[in-house]
């Protein structure tokens, strides 16, 4: 297999897996040309053995460049370095590593090319996920490194290599040195991903934090750890399936560590190779990223020592191993300890009194939007989008604040923060909690939340994740009409049409947020209500606004029917209305 074939294979496997996971037809379509290209390359590269060539020693220099010793060698370290360079190149062109590169390319493709609009969080939050992004690459590094270490046994070259003066432990170190390649590739991948997002994802906002340096370092260290794990496994267990089993095992272990504590606070999360992000914003966390990076470094060191131990057991190695174990203990304790009291107090205050720490923007004197400074860049965009809705609200609505709040269960906060909270947190009657940025998507959330709040509809499902049914209620139609103010007509119609208009299920016909996992609507309408809204959209905005202004209290009364509203604006009735049975949403 030549290099182009290797890369093509990697991309194909990654795309097939990615397409299978995401079910994205565009990915499947992309596979076809890549597959054809790979086939052409394969057919071109396959050939019969070359014919014998002549063997002439005429004119060939007979003297060696250097005879026996004095070959410009600098001992075992120089040999390990030279091996590391060669093995690094071989690792780079390994089909297994190519699959890892393919996975990385798939991540860029998915998150920065095909669906860049999904990224609306702060950069600081996205960078926290660096360890997650490099995991597919690291998994393939484990396999590729194992294959590299066991290559001589597989191919029967061990007898030639074994009688060379380079000791097996030096060869092991050479394989470990080859980890520079995945390190560089991961760095290039993360940089490329960031650059692509910079261009393609305008929703990303805010600056980076000092912790982000630790996040990236931790992610890059994972690449070294993956290589070390592959080498260690190869040195001790040659069976080819072992690295795959190990990768799956580590994945389960990491997931298990991340899942400790269920939905509550998990003090061990930083011991995972991919710590989960529990806080809705980086401002609510003080993560021990340095301890986590040291933990990963220590584990890498331990695994590397285990690899070398196969053929060498001396004091130096034991000292290095002991140092790595000691570092792991210290880092492990650091990663699971309570955060400093000052940080805990700061976070508790952010959760308890967000208004004391936020930047706010006023929308037409009636609506105020407040976010933490890290998200200030996003504020302008929220304001720009929600202003037409705010402008359309009748004066009776009064002053409303849309505020970024912690918004999750306090059980997810560490105990040292929980102890310092000023309770209760949700006693904010004239405020709408700003949804988490990564859920904002096309800002539908803010627009609709504001409109729903104005008419007395909830902006979130109840504790049982049950939506409120507003079928046949005038206030539901009013809220939707308000939520699409200032948009182009096509966009207005799109936002008032269910994702699957052909559905026969009444609930599915009534839920603008879709139905399925991670879909937790706060309100559902009925197909007739949605049709009524679309009919009102086609009316003169002034006419509808005047009708709403004149009878606002009536329209927000839950007992006022949609047909009454339609009659007031001169439209025929839309009923009878479907009877919608509320269905609980499914959390992620």
């Amino acid at each position, binding site marked *: 297999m030549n290099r182009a074939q290797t890369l093509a294979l990697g991309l194909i496997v990654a795309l097939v897996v990615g397409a299978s996971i995401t079910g994205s037809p565009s990915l499947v379509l992309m596979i076809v040309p890549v597959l054809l290209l790979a086939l052409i390359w394969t057919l071109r590269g396959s050939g019969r*053995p070359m014919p*014998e060539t002549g063997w002439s020693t005429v004119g060939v220099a007979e003297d060696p460049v250097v005879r026996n010793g004095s070959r410009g060698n600098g001992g075992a370290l120089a040999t390990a370095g030279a091996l590391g360079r060669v093995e690094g190149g071989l690792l780079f062109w390994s089909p297994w590593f190519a699959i890892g590169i393919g996975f990385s390319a798939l991540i860029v493709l998915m998150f920065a090319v095909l669906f860049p609009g999904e990224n609306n969080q702060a950069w600081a939050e996205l960078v926290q996920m660096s360890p997650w992004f490099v995991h597919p690459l690291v998994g393939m590094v484990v396999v590729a490194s194992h294959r590299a270490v066991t290559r001589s046994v597989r191919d029967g070259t061990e007898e*030639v290599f074994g009688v060379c003066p380079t000791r097996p432990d030096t060869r092991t170190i050479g394989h470990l040195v080859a980890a520079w390649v995945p390190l560089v590739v991961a760095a290039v991948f993360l940089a490329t991903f960031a650059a692509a997002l910079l261009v393609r994802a305008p929703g990303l906002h805010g600056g980076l934090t000092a912790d982000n340096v630790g996040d990236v370092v931790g992610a890059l260290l994972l690449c070294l750890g993956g290589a070390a794990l592959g080498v260690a496994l190869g040195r001790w267990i040659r069976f080819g399936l072992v690295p795959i089993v190990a990768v799956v095992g580590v994945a389960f272990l990491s997931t298990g560590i991340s899942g400790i504590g269920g939905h509550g606070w998990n003090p061990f999360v930083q011991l995972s190779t991919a710590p989960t992000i529990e806080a809705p914003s980086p401002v609510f966390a003080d993560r021990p990223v340095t301890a986590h990076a040291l933990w990963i470094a220590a584990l890498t060191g331990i695994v590397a020592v285990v690899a070398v131990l196969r053929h060498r057991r001396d004091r130096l190695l034991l000292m290095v191993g002991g140092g790595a174990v000691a570092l792991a203990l210290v880092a492990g304790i650091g990663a699971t300890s309570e955060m400093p009291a000052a940080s805990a107090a700061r976070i508790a205050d952010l959760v308890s009194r967000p208004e004391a720490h936020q930047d706010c923007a006023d929308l037409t004197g009636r609506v105020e939007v407040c976010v933490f400074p890290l998200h200030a860049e996003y504020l302008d965009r929220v304001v720009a989008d929600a202003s037409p809705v705010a402008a359309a609200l009748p004066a009776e609505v009064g002053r409303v604040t849309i505020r970024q709040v912690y918004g999750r269960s306090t059980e997810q906060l560490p105990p040292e923060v929980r102890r310092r909270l000023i309770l209760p947190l949700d006693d904010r009657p004239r405020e709408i909690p700003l949804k988490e940025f990564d859920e904002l998507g096309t800002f539908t959330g803010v627009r609709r939340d504001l409109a729903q709040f104005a008419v007395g509809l909830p902006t979130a499902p109840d504790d049982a994740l049950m939506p409120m049914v507003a079928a046949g209620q005038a206030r539901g139609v009013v809220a939707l009409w308000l939520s699409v103010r200032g948009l182009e007509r096509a966009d207005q119609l799109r936002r008032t049409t269910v994702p699957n208009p052909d559905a026969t299920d009444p609930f599915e016909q009534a839920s603008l947020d879709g139905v399925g996992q991670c879909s937790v609507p706060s309100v559902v309408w009925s197909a007739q209500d949605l049709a009524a809204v679309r009919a009102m959209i086609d009316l003169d905005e002034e006419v509808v606004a005047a009708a709403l202004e004149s009878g606002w209290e009536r329209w927000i009364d839950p007992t006022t029917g949609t047909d009454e509203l339609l009659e007031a604006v001169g439209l025929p009735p839309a009923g009878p209305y479907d009877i919608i049975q509320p269905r609980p949403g499914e959390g992620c």
Partner: protein
Amino acid sequence: MTRTVSLQELTKAFGATVAVAGVDLEFGSGVTGLLGPNGAGKTTLMRIVATAMAADSGRLEVLGHDPTTASGRLEVRRRLGYLPQEPGFHRNFSAFDFVDYVAILKEWGDRRLRHDEVRRVLALVGLEAVMHKKIGRLSGGMRRRVAIAQALLGSPDLLVLDEPTAGLDPEQRLRFRELLGTAAADATVLLSTHQTDDVAALCQRVVVLLGGRVAFAGAPADLAQHADGRVWIAPTRDTRAELAWVTGDGRVRHIGVPPSGAELVPPTVEDGYLLLAGQAAKPAMAEPS
């Protein structure tokens, strides 16, 4: 002859099978050929000399060092070139990459020097034009030459070559002889082969190994001389001969005790070896070739 390799009472067994049984042997610079039937212990002996395998008992001294110690082994390996009987290859490596990899393991740390040397040895075996082709695409003979090239790296003081001409065509065998005569002129070469004409052409000394023991050690001419007066030509097969085969001219060459009046011919190394190997070689060699 300066003695460079010395074996005393060397023994190696694999379970109940004794591959090398108390071998005493010394050899020095020049080419020493190792002859013997399959299973005679040649490969085991070569692997022991090449430090690829440890003997069970006995003493071994190679290039003035004791390979049973780590430091001795290291010193031997620094001056050793080894071609195993069945060298493996990384099929996705080019010939250059493979020999370069071995060169790194032979402690060629300086990249420029190493690459110059790799190019040199590949040129010696006539592969300079295809050195960047994948080994998987090379023919069997070319792969054998790649294996020979790696053994020649740095012109080692000791070359252990296990059947180096296996898979080479007649012209390539001649080239190999030429190569060994020049590239390894000052080295100690231990060469195992089934080709007695290689031994006759190349070796200053020949050792015949039978059943793990040294059956003969001396000059090739002495091995041939071993059959002096015991090789004759006759128009028909003589059943009293130990070995007999029809030659190219249709007459039958015999080895054994000649009848009176037999037409004796000068013996070759092959005759000497076959006589020594005796009945063990008879089934294979009795058929016309």
